[in-house]
């Protein structure tokens, strides 16, 4: 390709394209947009996606859900003590046993992490985190090299 020819071609195409004005948008576009906006604002908040809820309601619902989960977990474990007293409590205790298990597992995990942090010391923890990040970066790098070498066609690399 000749650079001078390319320059002239670019100038000629630019001249033509610059002469184009804006295209006329269909007149109903505005009405369409306003109709959708009206429909959306007429929809009550509880019918919208959680992301579209008012911020206060998002916070309140999240707090409520977390509290309910904690109560269920703690209540499930407490109920086990009364399971022997009544058949109904035994029944409910059975339902809650899974939540109790999750709660216990989460507790054990947090305790194990705290113990590891205390016994290994911050240097080892930070070192491990750095190694983990470096390994991740290495994987991404190798993946990129693989993509460049193996997946992008040779012809394209030469162009």
């Amino acid at each position, binding site marked *: 390709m*000749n650079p001078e*020819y390319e320059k002239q*071609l*670019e100038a000629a195409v630019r001249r033509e394209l610059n002469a184009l004005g*804006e295209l006329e948008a269909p007149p109903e576009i505005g009405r369409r*947009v306003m109709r959708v*906006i009206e429909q959306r604002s007429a929809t009550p908040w509880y019918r919208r996606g959680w992301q579209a809820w008012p911020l206060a309601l998002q916070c309140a619902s999240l707090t409520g859900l977390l509290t309910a989960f904690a109560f269920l977990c703690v209540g499930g474990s407490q109920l086990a003590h009364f399971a022997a007293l009544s058949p109904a409590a035994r029944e409910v205790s059975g339902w809650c046993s899974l939540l109790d298990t999750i709660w216990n597992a989460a507790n054990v995990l947090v305790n194990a992490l705290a113990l590891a942090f205390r016994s290994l010391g911050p240097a080892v923890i930070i070192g491990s985190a750095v190694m983990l990040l470096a390994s991740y970066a290495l994987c991404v790098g190798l993946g990129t090299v693989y993509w460049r070498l193996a997946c992008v*066609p040779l012809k394209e*690399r030469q*162009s």
Partner: protein
Amino acid sequence: MTNAQQFETLMRNHQNMVFSTAMRLLANQTDAEDVTQETFLRAYERFEQLRGSPTVSGWLKTVATNLSLNHLSRYRSRWSFFSELLGSGREEHEEREMEFPASETVTETLDEADRRALVEQALQQLPAAQRVPLVLFHFEDLAYEEIATKLGVSLGKVKTDIFRGREALRRQLRLRLMDEPAAAATRT
């Protein structure tokens, strides 16, 4: 003036620009209308920040461009677009001729409006792999490197596709270059 009225004014002032951006990238009226609608719906969600901002036009253009590119890669011609970008089917598009009459001095003998319509038509009939980088270069004023990054293709491919797009337009519109005989001699 209420919020809705202010927004309608903003929409009226910018709808042609947003629609043109989408239409030139997508080359499809229905898709361009959808992208225009989505762009303004997003603008409405941020209307408090956009109202009176001097960058509103740029913001709308960027959103319309990104939505159009997303639309191209996700929905409309997912497989054909990417196969064009990666090179397969290139020959098929090079061989394809556009289907509208063109005389030797096609753009000179038409009146202004017809000439513009013809250029728009020629642009829309380019294959997406040529049209999209060409539009990003000439209408969005993006550099080759920026286009390559945006489309996720190599710099060489962008340059080649833009050159091919310009060549196709030159052929179809019978554009005369300033130094035509010399240029023809050195073209290859």
